[in-house]
């Protein structure tokens, strides 16, 4: 029995995909901020990859200085509102809040953060501005969290910044990939517009950088180039039948969902392959789109899944069923997907081994592959002297983000192999400082 009926209007879509961290009103923000202890050397700050001064901004909210709170947040993290809503706070700031040790609900830091930043965005509070022009130019490839954060920081440092983006909207996976119940498109884009208005960088949409010629133009026209290209499409499974209709990649499926909302079609019986956070998202999303049954199939046991526990709980909570210790061997069907043939697996000395003769077919009419995103290996090979590691991640200096081609800097998913929005935002800010350091020395 389906928990959700298929949404047929924007309104029904938003009801099925209701925000997990809804906006706080002023009273709730007052109550919640009143609970914060203002810890010394607060563990929540230490747990925030962007090092937001959390007790400070909470105290500012509590004393009626919401604008100052937003400033504190943006000084550390340009994706302040987005992070408040999409960060896995359970394992970051809120997971570190001292209240956990007292078995008391931790402070809802994420929601407080969004409370302050959203207010600043809506009231168009001018909190940031470009620095005095220093005459240097930086090109940014990719308008995701990494690219936009680098653009903001570089503008603050006085650089002229041009961003080149393949798609037609900014924020990268924040608008194209994150689950819709975490943040709405409007909210993401409002923050992007707010930043661009204050910093005044240019963004050229539908402008992928793909060729050696494109790259050469950037190298000649700019003092430094920042690569915020993230990852690529969903990895192929290399299984027979993968080309069948209704066998789709998770990233592509979610992009459809983000762009088309209720117009996205989902199967009646969906099998999601994978055990990471993207698999959890795709499964939850299928269920909220009204699928009758959603099965999450993973090669290993439940406890071995890469996904955060709360993400699995979220999926279970909307009726997703787990199928563990199974490996797909074929996508069966006749033109369209009709099922997945699995073989059972068992752990043998830490290795996943198939159990001979245990094949079975689980019928379904849609398969979503959440088996990781490919790296942009080909594109990166066009850049002279740029090295990637064994996993296809760009090799760069830990602190400055400088790659093995000194004119190129990078951060975000392209460098860390796929993390969170907050990591991209924090690392890009540091990389912008790295660019500044490098060009100032030149």
């Amino acid at each position, binding site marked *: 029995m389906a928990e959700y009926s298929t949404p047929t209007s924007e309104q029904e879509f938003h009801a099925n995909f209701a925000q997990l961290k809804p906006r706080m009103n002023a009273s709730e923000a007052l109550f919640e901020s009143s609970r914060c202890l203002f*810890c010394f*050397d607060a563990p929540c700050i230490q747990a925030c990859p962007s090092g937001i001064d959390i007790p400070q901004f909470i105290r500012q909210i509590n004393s009626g200085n919401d604008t100052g709170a937003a*400033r504190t947040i943006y000084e550390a993290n340009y994706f302040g509102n987005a992070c408040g809503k999409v960060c896995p706070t359970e394992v970051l700031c809120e997971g570190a809040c001292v209240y956990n040790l007292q078995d008391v609900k931790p402070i809802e830091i994420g929601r407080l953060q969004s409370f302050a930043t959203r207010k600043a965005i809506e009231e168009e509070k001018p909190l940031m501005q470009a620095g005095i022009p220093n005459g240097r130019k930086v090109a940014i490839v990719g308008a995701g969290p990494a690219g936009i954060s680098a653009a903001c920081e570089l503008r603050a440092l006085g650089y002229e910044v041009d961003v080149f983006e393949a798609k037609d909207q900014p924020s990268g996976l924040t608008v194209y990939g994150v689950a819709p119940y975490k943040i709405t498109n409007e909210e993401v884009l409002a923050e992007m517009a707010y930043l661009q208005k204050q910093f005044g960088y240019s963004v050229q949409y539908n402008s992928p950088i793909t060729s050696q010629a494109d790259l050469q133009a950037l190298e000649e026209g700019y003092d430094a180039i920042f690569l915020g290209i993230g990852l690529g499409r969903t990895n192929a499974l290399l299984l027979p039948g993968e080309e069948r209709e209704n066998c789709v990649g998770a990233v592509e499926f979610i992009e459809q969902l983000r762009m088309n909302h209720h117009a996205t079609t989902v199967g009646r019986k969906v099998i999601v392959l994978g055990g990471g956070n993207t698999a959890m998202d795709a499964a939850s999303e299928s269920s909220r789109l009204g699928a009758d049954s959603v099965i999450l199939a993973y090669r290993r046991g439940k406890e071995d899944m890469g996904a955060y526990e709360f993400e699995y709980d979220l999926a279970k909570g909307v009726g997703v069923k787990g199928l563990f210790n199974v490996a797909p061997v074929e996508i069966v069907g006749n033109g369209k997907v009709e099922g997945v043939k699995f073989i059972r697996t068992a752990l043998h000395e830490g290795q996943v081994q198939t159990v001979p003769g245990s094949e079975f077919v689980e019928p379904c009419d849609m398969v979503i592959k959440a088996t990781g995103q490919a790296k942009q290996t080909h594109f990166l090979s066009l850049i002279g002297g740029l090295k990637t590691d064994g996993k296809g991640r760009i090799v760069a200096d830990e602190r400055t983000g400088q790659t093995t081609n000194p004119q190129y800097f990078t951060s975000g998913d392209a460098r860390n192999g796929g993390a969170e929005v907050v990591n991209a935002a924090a690392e890009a800010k540091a990389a912008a400082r790295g660019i500044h350091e490098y060009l100032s020395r030149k």
Partner: protein
Amino acid sequence: MPDLSINFAGIKSPNPFWLASAPPTNSGYQVMKAFDAGWGGAVWKTLGVPVVNVSSRYGSVNYRDKRMMGFNNIELISDRPLSDNLREIEEVKKRFPNHAVIASLMVQSRQEWHDIVRQSQEAGADGIELNFGCPHGMCERGMGSAVGQEPEVLQTIVEWVMEVAKIPVIVKLTPNISDITEPAMAARRGGADAISLINTIQSIVGVDLDLFAPYPIVDGKGSNGGYCGPAVKPIALNMLKNCAQHPDVRLPISGIGGIETWRDAVEHILLGASSVQVCTAAMHYGFGIIREMTSGLEQYMVDKGFNTIYDFVGKALPNVLHWEDLNMKYKVTANIHEEKCIGCQLCYTACEDGAHQAIKLNAGTRVPEIIEANCVGCNLCSLVCPVEDCITMDRKDDGTAHVTWKERTEANDIPTEFNDEKAGGRHHWVPEPAAALGKEKHKTLPGKARQFEKVTVTQEVTE
């Protein structure tokens, strides 16, 4: 079940909880509702001369998300016709013959006092309270606290009242005076049967940051008002103690000020009150709070084995001494119970910045450690710790020695100059001033600065 009833200077009441003279006792309707709810008595909203009130009358002090920690008003005495009030007093007394109805009065001339006292008696009031406390409006007209601040005037008026009074007379004192026992003694000299305290404290509860005017705002302006509510309890308790301990006051006392729960009431009683009055709490939460107050008081009395209120009136008074009589040999130090600590480090920063640098942090743990040799036993860390009983103050002396400042003075055993061996703090370690510079800077910098410590930020963010 313990007996909650009282006989306060001849005024009988089924329990010690009275509503103070204020808006909750403005009408027969309210008083009947309160008695119905379980209140033992009510001091009627002050009757007297005709007045006119302004609009916008109250202001509040909020602490974080808690409202009305302190409350203030610029309201005057009853603005309802005297005859209406008297008729309603009569009606209430008819329906509630065993409850206490006390008429609060405030007029000017001897004749006026005689008239109004007589009228109150005829209406059936069980007692009279003379309002010598109102700190705004009425005092500008020579009444209220203008009387309470002049012991001789106060005594004269009490004498006028006693000339005609046939029922017990309580004098309500203003706290807006440096020594509350002076008007208390004047009341006794004048012949009063009891005193009640405190009335409200002159105050400005806040200033509107946009209108540049004090709260409550009347057409862009404000005036000082009278402060009450939870915030004033400590002041009330101290004044109550002063009167209760004074050998020349010796009158029953009705305790008022910041009473909201049974605990507050018990504290007033332990310091000498034999009835208690409540205003702000009833204005905040309504008459229903009486159920918690009586049940809490009853439970306390059962737990302690007290049969009547009088078993513990003033029971804490022998333990309130002058500072010079405290045992200087008593010594406590802070003790952190590691298993309860949540690592907020509030104790650390409080002691480090606000006390005696007697707590240190150790690598690898967020649980701070007390440096016992430096701990003076001030309590601060245990007060800021958010976890109940996580920091306890444990006794360190063996309890055999007892010496007070007074005894030391008498024995000529006190320091007379700073490098005297006997001087306090002389052997107490304090860090070198310059050791403060840069200390733990990396922990107190804002998040962003921590991240970019090495790179100087030249850009200035302005709005």
